């Protein structure tokens, strides 16, 4: 049995050498969700990283723990990785929109017009949906939400996004996802983000070590 300095380890009665090699079944670590957060009110949602989780609500909990534990934020979105459509990555001076596969003219959608409520209702009735669009401005940085478009498929959403946001440069990479696939934090639950400030023991500035060092030096000249 393994002997540890930690009595809790000893209580586990761990064997010195395992008899068999460990194995894991597929999906033992679940699938992944991509997480975006909003740093402060009005700021765009920015990509922070993935989490592994069995479903969206749990993904949200894990994401909150992982990405808002130390960095204040005012909102969070989680999206199943498989629900995101990704363009090719292009160079830091280029636009990914210039490299989209061309749709046949007849199916290339026109950008949704926000004022046209009748047309909008008809489009939704015909099966169009909202898509969220995210841009990566520079390799190594994080994707940022730029807005929504209405379209009938991810490929069509990218074409609409090109018409609406294509002027922005550079755009190294674009992500799009059905808005319905995004789990968003609720405005009503805002108070879940306000737990950080009281935990001073987690901040570097609350350790006034220099005072103690100076005192020690003065006493031990």
């Amino acid at each position, binding site marked *: 049995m393994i002997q540890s300095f930690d009595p809790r380890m000893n209580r586990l009665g761990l064997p010195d050498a395992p008899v068999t090699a460990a194995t894991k079944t597929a*999906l033992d670590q679940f699938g992944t969700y991509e997480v975006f957060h909003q740093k402060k009110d009005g700021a765009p949602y920015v990509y922070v990283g993935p989490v592994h989780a069995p479903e969206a609500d749990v993904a949200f909990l894990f994401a909150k723990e992982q990405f808002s534990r130390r960095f204040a934020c005012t909102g969070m979105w989680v999206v199943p990785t498989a629900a995101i459509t990704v363009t090719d990555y292009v160079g830091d001076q280029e636009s990914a929109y210039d490299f989209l596969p061309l749709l046949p003219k007849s199916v290339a959608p026109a950008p949704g017009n926000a004022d046209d409520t009748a047309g909008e209702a008809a489009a939704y009735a015909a099966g169009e949906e909202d898509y969220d669009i995210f841009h990566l401005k520079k390799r190594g940085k994080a994707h940022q939400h730029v807005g929504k478009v209405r379209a009938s498929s991810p490929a069509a959403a990218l074409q609409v996004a090109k018409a609406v946001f294509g002027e922005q440069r550079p755009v190294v990479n674009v992500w799009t996802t059905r808005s319905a696939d995004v789990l968003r934090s609720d405005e009503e639950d805002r108070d879940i983000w306000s737990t950080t400030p009281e935990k001073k023991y987690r901040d570097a500035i609350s350790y006034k070590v220099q005072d103690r060092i100076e005192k020690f030096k003065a006493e031990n000249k």
Partner: protein
Amino acid sequence: MYGSASTHDLPTTATTGLENEDPILLAEFEARIARGEKIEPGDWMPALYRKQLTRMIEQHAHSEIIGSLPEGTWITRAPGFRRKMAQMAKVQDEVGHAQLLYSAAETLGKTREQMLIDLINGKSKYSNVFNYPTPTWADSNVISWLIDAGAIVNQLANAKGSYGPYCRALDRICAEEAFHLKYGHDAVVHMATGTPIQRAMMQAALNRWWPAIMTFFGPSDKMSVHTEILMRWKVKMASNDECRNQFLDMYVPKIWEIGLTLPDEKLAKNEETGRWEFTEPDWEDFKRVINGDGPCNAERIAVRRAAEENGAWVRRALLTPKTQYVRPLA
């Protein structure tokens, strides 16, 4: 770590496999890195780049999760409520670092299941310093301050590397390390400037840990195999000796200023060369320990394995049939 402390098993030029790569794609890849652009998961990359980065980020992730054990063991016995809370917060950060890093490695194609299996079956390495025990609270403090300080030297260098997902993870990690460093320094200073018993306990812990700390950045450059190509690809960002020297420059004065000593009579800075001189660490012993024969290797792996196995039924119960796996995006 904690970065690149185990790049002792790098390939020699004979096994790079570069001759099998498409020369045009390879030239574009190298030009992108030379321009200072990052590589992202959707890009073409040489097999050797993928392999070395996977290994390096995976080892870094393992080091975070195994590294949380020697400090985690002190949470229940930390002196005072505030220190318990702080120690717990630090340990939680380290586990969070592992999560970030496993995901970054996963974008290169290796599943998290496989990485965890390789760790608990002893196939993967992690930072060798965590194969040593923390018999007292002061030992835990030495890790919090000096091992994290070493880790930061590595991580700041690696954050300038070429792989986007690793850089993003390291940026978050480095931001949290600021707290670890201050917390650790505070804990050490508290003991070193405390009662004679506290002071003696801290000195003893420092004496125990110093040889391991001197090996933290890996074997000296003169012993390391060829790493030129990994430097060019910005996989390895600084040599072991450069990192070690930078660490000594930053922290030895801080150790001495609180009246602690270091168990190496040769340790001194050569003001002419700007390099620290010291007794060469026992690299044979380092090899022996990293290959499994250290005081805590078996315990670390066994604890990790028990945690994996004891949690398996919970994960099985949570798994929904519609789950499909795709690699994380970035």
